[in-house]
């Protein structure tokens, strides 16, 4: 592998999750520069790739993956939905969901973070509404099912927090240049 190939490989690594088209287009541009100057482009190739990822953003497929995965994570983090399994670690899934939303915000930016947070909040809000408005109906099938007001309030507030984390955290995280 030539030095240029190695350099471009590092640039591609820095551009992780960017669409293949943008990666190839940028690497071709750098290769043309190397051919013109007869030297390798300067600077840290991986940092350059990361800077370009900030410009191009991550690919649509990866955004969709982040958003769709947040939904089942949100579902598993809803205490009233997983209450049928008493040992189920809903709190652990809530932490995982928050980390996932932060990851989406870090790689995809504010709007991806917001959409991922909303996707995770939807099953939690549905669970909340079901238990506020359909508890009587549920109790016809399940004996004395009850959820405390504190739990409802906690689920509501943490659900609101998810899209907010997605929107604000990503903009606050700076990557090394």
């Amino acid at each position: 592998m030539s030095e240029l190939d190695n350099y471009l490989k590092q640039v591609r690594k820095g551009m992780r999750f960017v669409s293949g088209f943008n990666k190839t287009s940028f690497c071709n541009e750098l290769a043309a520069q190397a051919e013109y100057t007869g030297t390798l482009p300067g600077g840290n190739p991986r940092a350059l790739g990361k800077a370009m990822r900030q410009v191009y953003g991550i690919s649509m497929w990866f955004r969709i993956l982040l958003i769709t995965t947040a939904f089942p994570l949100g579902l598993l983090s809803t205490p009233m939905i997983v209450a049928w399994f008493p040992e189920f670690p809903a709190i652990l899934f809530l932490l995982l969901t928050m980390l996932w939303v932060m990851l989406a915000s870090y790689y995809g930016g504010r709007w991806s973070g917001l959409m991922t947070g909303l996707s995770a909040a939807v099953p939690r809000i549905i669970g909340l509404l079901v238990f506020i408005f359909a508890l009587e109906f549920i109790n016809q099938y399940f004996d004395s099912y009850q959820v405390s007001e504190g739990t409802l309030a906690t689920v509501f507030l943490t659900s609101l927090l998810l899209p907010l984390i997605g929107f604000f955290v990503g903009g606050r995280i700076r990557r090394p240049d």
Partner: protein
Amino acid sequence: MIVARKVDAVSELRRGALELALLAYLNRKPDFGGAMISGLAEATAGGLVITEGSLYPALGRLEKKGFLNPEFRKEVEGRKPRKYYTLTEEGVLRLKELKAAWIPLVDGVTLLFGDENDE
């Protein structure tokens, strides 16, 4: 790895001026990234020396905003095509806008230096 970025005042100043410099440079003639690094240094008499790390992200941002029109040209057979950038109409308008703000800003700040200019 996530780290807090240390802001260097000189880098920030250069970064702010880079958009205007690139638009002004490309308004003279379309060019490709590889030639722009040395071209800018020459055109500014060494006043604006940039690296790939600042050039390409800046070009990418300007392209995304619609100020630049990129075009791959295969100039020499057997060589890789070069990505040439030209200013769009929006780019020309943006250049006029930035230039109108830049000149009084630089003149005004230079006046503040007063006698220090002679040193």
